[in-house]
């Protein structure tokens, strides 16, 4: 495990940069656990102060210290992304492995459902959920809904790997030794798909946080809960750029770009690591 990490950092500059970016953002988000102010309160600091020694990131027009506000926002968004990714990984692993290994009608039914989920555009559905639930829709409900739509593409990837594993020697050994299907899948096949699970984990986080930003910017989430999207929403609704409170837009945008770029670099460098041909080329072998 650690030797893989060491190799990745040494030979893969994208992985190193991605790791550094994600680490910075994660530490920043973790600082919110020591926050001296409640990020949901408004008018607790002097509004519209530019970045200074007292307020590192300035304050916004709602009287919030942007440093702690953004720290809480990034924590909430990262937790949100991780929740969606974990839940949808569980579904995609279950569907992918079962469909690939069991095959037959199970495979056909699961893949039919899978193809339907791929083709349904999620955005109108999410807006619809907001429209009916309004303020009853908290982060976790949203994460649950998104997880229900975030699995199909990755399930197909996992299935393609499971199809190959099914005819390998060790699978037959396991079956002849009397292992149940559930055990074969969890103990024999799961380790082989873990690399895919990790790389799609990052991609899924990018997707879900991006969608949350989209929804929040339109005002379609719980706006009192600080997230990356709601910070932008409030900045926008106070016309921050027009009245000259540029730090309210600029600092979040820089942090967002860092987060997304970091996760994206991690995802693609892991993808490359999974493919041994490109890994060897990079290591110069």
């Amino acid at each position, binding site marked *: 495990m650690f030797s893989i990490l060491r190799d990745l950092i040494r030979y893969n500059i994208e992985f190193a940069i991605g790791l550094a970016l994600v680490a910075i953002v994660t530490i920043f988000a973790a600082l919110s656990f020591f926050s001296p102010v409640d990020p949901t309160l408004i008018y607790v600091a002097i509004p519209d102060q530019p970045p200074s020694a007292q307020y590192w990131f300035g304050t916004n027009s709602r009287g919030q210290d942007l440093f702690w506000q953004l720290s809480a926002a990034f924590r909430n968004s990262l937790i949100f992304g991780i929740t969606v990714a974990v839940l949808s990984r569980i579904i995609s692993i279950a569907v992918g492995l079962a469909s690939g290994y069991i095959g037959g009608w199970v495979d056909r039914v699961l893949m039919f459902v899978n193809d339907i989920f791929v083709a349904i555009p999620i955005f109108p559905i999410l807006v619809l959920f907001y429209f009916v639930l309004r303020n009853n829709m908290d982060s976790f409900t949203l994460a649950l809904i998104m997880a229900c739509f975030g699995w199909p593409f990755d399930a197909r990837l996992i299935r393609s790997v499971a199809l190959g594993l099914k005819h390998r020697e060790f699978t037959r050994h396991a079956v002849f030794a009397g292992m149940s299907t559930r055990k074969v899948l969890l103990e024999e096949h799961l380790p082989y798909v873990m690399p895919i699970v990790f790389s799609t984990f990052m991609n899924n986080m990018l997707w879900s946080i991006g969608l949350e930003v989209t929804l929040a910017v339109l*005002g379609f989430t719980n706006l009192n809960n600080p997230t990356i999207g709601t910070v*932008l929403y409030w900045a926008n609704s106070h016309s921050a750029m027009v009245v000259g409170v540029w730090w309210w837009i600029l600092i979040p945008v820089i942090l967002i770009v860092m987060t997304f770029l970091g996760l994206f670099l991690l995802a693609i460098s892991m993808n490359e690591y999974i493919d041994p041909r490109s890994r060897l080329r990079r290591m110069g072998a």
Partner: protein
Amino acid sequence: MQGYLWFVGKRLLQLLAVIFCGISATFLVTHLSPVDPVEQVLGRLSARSNLSPEAIAATRAALTEMYGTGQPILQQYFNFWTRLLRGDLGPSLLAFPTPAMDLVGRAMPWTLGLLVTSTLITFIIGNLLGALAGYNPDNRFLKAFGLVAMGIQPIPYYVVAFILLIIFGYFFPILPVSGGFAMDVRPGLSWQFVGSILQHSILPALSLVLVGFGGWFLGMRALVSNVVNDDYVTYAELAGVKRSTIAGGYVIRNAMVPQITALAMAIGGVFSGTVITEQVFNYPGLGSLLIDAVNWGDYSLVLAVSTVSITAVAGAIFIVDLLHPLLDPRVRAE
């Protein structure tokens, strides 16, 4: 040929299943939720005006009849489908008494035009440059281009659109940043009107292209650089096949197959990007309509926009899927 027809039939069945499930989901979400559309509308009405209790009771009765919420859920589901097949989802509340479907029909060409042009431009530019970059891995210009693509690609739509808005609306006000066409131009088939539409669509389209092309570029580059190392390409090179033939017929054609599949997958995502783009640039399409409808609590309009967009996205995926066997003979033979 028979293989192709078999493939089309299978896909058509899937298309119908997708549309059926998607629309049923919209019905279920709206009807099984604890929130009553009638009360929602009443809440909005009575917050804005001074209605007497009798008037509210009468409105409630009328709305209950209009939405049919008094009936059992199966009956409502059945009614919903029969009305939907006739293309009638009731009047919009936002622009009462215009039917919701009329509003959708008016907004549709804007979104469709923006989506189709920007997706085509993005797909072609991204794949062409990506293929070149994969085929000539040492080209300095293409390498730099790859870095730029990698930097822009993961940024959310909204942020890119917003940065464009600030640059072109604030620092260099040379392009219109809002609306579908200039206020002083009369809609009609004139050069002025068409020119105005094109000019207003530059920024929304540009934001979609900027966000989209990176993914195609990076994907195509990776695919091509793998295909180039395949044995049959080496063999063709040794056999003295022309470089252009190898690039076009051997490498790019094979690398295109997964990209076409990816295009089908991407359409849904591009649609949600369009919604945001329309909102940022105040563009009169389906996205703006959906947002207005949600903000106004316009029940029939929200349902109309969702059903139409689900059908449209599923239809677009179907069309892209039909292109697949033309590129990949294995799909035909299946």
